[in-house]
C-alpha cells in the first residue's frame, strides 16, 4: 500500500506548480468568529461620514454644491449598474461603493464648474478607473481622483483655481482680503483664488518691472544695474506679499478650519471631514498610519524646504534677466512659521485627500509599515509640487502617483512569516 501511495503523493505539488492556482485565502483552524463588517457596511459608513461636509458645502457654496454631489453620485450609480449588466456580473450598486466614489468625485470639483463636469468626472471614475480594471477591489488608482484628473485636463476653464467661489450671498465671512465682507445685493458669488493659489501667485507672479527701452539703450552697465535693482525690488515685493498674506491677506485660520474659503466643494471644511474620519479610524476601517504620515511629511516638508521666489525682468515677451531666491519660512519669519505650516495643512484638498482618498482600502498598502511609507510619499510629493511645481494644488496627483507604487510597497513590506528565515 505504501509503495502505491508514495508515487501519488508528489502529484498535487507538481500540479500546483505547473497550473496557475486560483487566488486562495488561507485561514486557520475553525471555529471562526464572523465579523459584522461587509463592503456595504463600510461603504455606507464612509458615505455617512461624508454627509456633514456635504451638507456644509451647500452653506458655503450654494445650491450648486448639492446639485454637483447629486449629479456625480447618480452618474456613478447608473454607470456602475450599466457596466456590470454589460459585463454579466452581479450588479452591486447597493453596496454603496459607487455612491462613495460619486460623492468623493464631486467633493474635489469647484461648485462653479458646469453641470457636465461632475457627470464626466464620475463617468470616467467608475467606467474607466474602476470597471475597466475589473471593478471594486481591482482598481490600481483611486477612481475619484482619476475622474478629477481627467476633468482637470479636459475642462481647464471650469477647474481654473481663480474661478473657485469664495463665498456666497447670505454667508458672511471676515477677512477675505480685497473681496470684502459684504456682498452687493444681487451678487450670487464672488470668485477668487483659493488660498493656495494666492500663496503660489505671491511667489511666482512677480514678472514685470520692465525697464524702459531707452534705459537699456543708454548703456549696458547702467542697464545691468537697473535690471538688478528691478529684480531685487520684485523679490522684496514677493516677500512682502507672502508676509502680508500670512498676517491678514489670506482667510482666517478659523475660517480655514471651518471651511469658508475658496476651494472645491467638499475639501474646505477640515473640521467636519476630520469628524467623520475620527469615527472611521475608531472603527478600524481607516488606519491612522496613512493620514499621520501624510500630515507629518507635509508639516516637516513645509518647515524644511525653502520657498522659491522667482523674479523676472521682461522686455516685450523676452526675458532679459531672472533671479531665484530661496527663503526658509522658519528662519525668515520665525513668529509666522507655524501659521505658514497651518495654511499648508488646511488649504487645498490635503485634509480630504489624506483622510479619505489616500486611505482608500483598495489603493493603499496592506501593512502598517507600508502605509507609513505610502503616506510619507504622498506628503513629500504634495509639498514638492506645491512649492516648486506648476500646479497650485498637488494632492490629487501625489496620491495617484503613490497609488502606482502600492504593489511595490506591498512587496517590500511583506511581514516575515514566523519561523522562516528572511
Amino acid at each position, binding site marked *: 500500500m505504501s509503495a502505491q501511495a508514495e508515487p501519488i503523493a508528489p502529484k498535487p505539488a507538481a500540479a500546483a506548480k505547473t497550473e496557475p492556482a486560483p487566488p486562495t485565502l488561507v485561514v486557520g483552524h475553525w471555529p471562526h468568529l464572523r465579523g459584522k463588517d461587509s463592503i456595504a457596511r463600510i461603504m455606507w459608513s464612509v458615505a455617512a461620514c461624508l454627509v456633514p461636509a456635504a451638507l456644509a458645502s451647500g452653506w458655503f457654496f450654494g445650491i450648486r454644491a448639492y446639485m454637483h454631489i447629486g449629479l456625480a453620485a447618480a452618474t456613478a450609480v447608473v454607470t456602475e449598474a450599466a457596466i456590470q449588466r454589460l459585463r454579466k456580473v452581479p450588479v452591486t450598486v447597493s453596496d454603496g461603493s459607487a455612491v462613495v466614489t460619486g460623492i468623493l468625485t464631486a467633493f474635489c470639483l469647484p461648485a462653479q464648474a458646469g453641470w*457636465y463636469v461632475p457627470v464626466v468626472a464620475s463617468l470616467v471614475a467608475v467606467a474607466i478607473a474602476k470597471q*475597466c480594471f475589473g471593478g471594486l477591489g481591482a482598481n490600481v488608482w483611486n477612481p475619484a481622483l482619476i475622474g478629477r484628473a481627467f476633468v482637470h*485636463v*479636459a*475642462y*481647464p476653464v471650469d477647474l481654473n483655481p481663480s474661478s473657485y467661489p469664495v463665498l456666497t450671498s447670505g454667508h458672511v465671512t471676515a477677512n477675505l482680503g480685497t473681496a470684502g465682507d459684504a456682498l452687493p445685493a444681487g451678487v450670487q458669488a464672488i470668485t477668487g483664488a483659493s488660498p493656495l493659489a494666492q500663496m503660489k501667485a505671491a511667489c511666482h507672479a512677480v514678472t514685470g518691472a520692465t525697464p524702459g527701452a531707452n534705459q537699456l539703450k543708454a548703456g549696458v552697465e547702467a542697464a545691468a544695474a537697473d535690471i538688478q535693482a528691478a529684480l531685487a525690488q520684485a523679490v522684496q515685493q514677493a516677500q512682502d506679499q507672502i508676509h502680508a498674506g500670512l498676517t491678514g491677506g489670506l482667510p482666517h485660520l478659523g475660517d480655514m478650519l471651518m471651511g469658508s474659503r475658496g476651494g472645491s466643494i467638499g475639501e474646505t471644511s477640515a473640521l467636519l471631514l476630520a469628524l467623520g474620519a475620527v469615527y472611521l479610524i475608531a472603527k478600524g476601517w481607516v488606519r491612522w498610519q496613512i493620514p499621520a504620515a501624510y500630515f507629518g511629511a507635509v508639516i516637516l516638508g513645509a518647515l524644511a524646504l525653502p520657498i522659491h521666489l522667482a523674479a523676472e525682468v521682461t522686455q516685450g515677451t523676452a526675458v532679459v534677466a531672472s533671479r531665484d531666491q530661496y527663503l526658509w519660512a522658519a528662519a525668515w519669519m520665525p513668529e509666522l512659521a507655524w501659521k505658514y505650516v497651518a495654511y499648508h495643512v488646511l488649504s487645498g484638498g490635503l485634509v480630504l485627500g489624506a483622510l479619505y482618498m489616500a486611505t482608500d482600502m483598495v489603493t493603499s498598502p496592506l501593512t502598517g509599515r507600508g502605509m507609513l511609507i505610502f503616506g510619507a510619499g504622498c506628503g513629500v510629493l504634495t509639498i514638492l509640487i506645491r512649492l516648486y511645481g506648476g500646479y497650485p494644488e498637488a494632492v490629487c496627483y501625489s496620491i495617484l502617483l503613490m497609488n502606482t507604487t502600492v504593489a511595490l510597497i506591498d512587496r517590500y513590506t511583506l511581514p516575515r512569516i514566523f519561523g522562516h528565515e528572511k
Partner: protein
Amino acid sequence: MGLWKEFIQKPIQQNPVFVLVLGLCPTLAVSTSLANGVAMACAATGVLICSNVLISLIRKFIPNQIRIACFIVVIAGFVTMCEIIMKALAPEAINKALGIFIPLIVVNCIILGRAEAYASQHGPLASMLDGLGVGVGYLLSLGLISFIREVLGAGTLWGYRLTPVVLGGTTVIPEYTPAAVLGMAPGAFIIIGLLFGLFYWIGNRRREAARCAAVPAVPQVARDFPKPPKEGAEAGGPGRGRRAAGRGAAVGPSAQVLTQGARRAQGKG
C-alpha cells in the same frame, strides 16, 4: 475568387491597428481630427499599395540577407513621391498638421510588415489587393479614432463646429463643451485603449457564441456514457455545458474540456 474573398475580409481580420497592432505612433499622433486621420491613412495606403506591388515584382532578385534594406529603399522612394504630391495638392493646414509623420511613413511598421509578411511571398496582384485591403483597414480604424477624438475633444466634425440642435424652440441637444483632454496625447491613449478593449470583447463574444453553437451535439455523445472522464466532471459536467450553451453565456473552458472528453470517449467507443 479566393483572392477576392481574402481581400474582402482583410480590413477587419487583418486590421493594422486593432488586430496587427502596428503603426500606433502615427495613429496616436495624427488622429486629432478626421481630416488629418483620413489624409494620413490615404497617404499610407498609397505608399503601401505601390511598395507592395514593386516589392512583389522584384522579390525574386532580392538577396534574403539584405531584404529589409531593399524594402526600405523601395518604400522611401514612394514616400518621397507621396510627400511631394501632398505638398503640391493637399491643403496647407493638413500638410502642417501631418508634418513629420508623412516622411516617417518610411519606417511605418504597417508598410514594412506587409512587405515582409506578404509582398515578398506573393504575386503582384495579390500584393496589390493586400495593400488595398490593409490600407482600407487602416483608413477605417484611423477614421474611427479621429472621428471620436475630433467630435468629443474639439466639438467639431471635419472642421465644422457642432451646433446645438433646436427643434421647435426647445433645445434638444445642448451646446457641447469639448473635453480638451481627448485632443491631447492622454486622450489618444485612452480612446485607443478603450477601443482595443471593445473590439476584443466583441471578438471574444463572437468566438464564444461560435464555440457554444458547436457544442450542443457533443453532450448528446457524452450523455451516453454514464461516467464521463474526470476532466469533464471537474468542469461542471455535461448538464452545465448544455445549459450554458443554450444561454450563450461565457463557458469557454468547460465547453472545450467537454469536447475533449467526448472526443476521447468516442475514440474509446
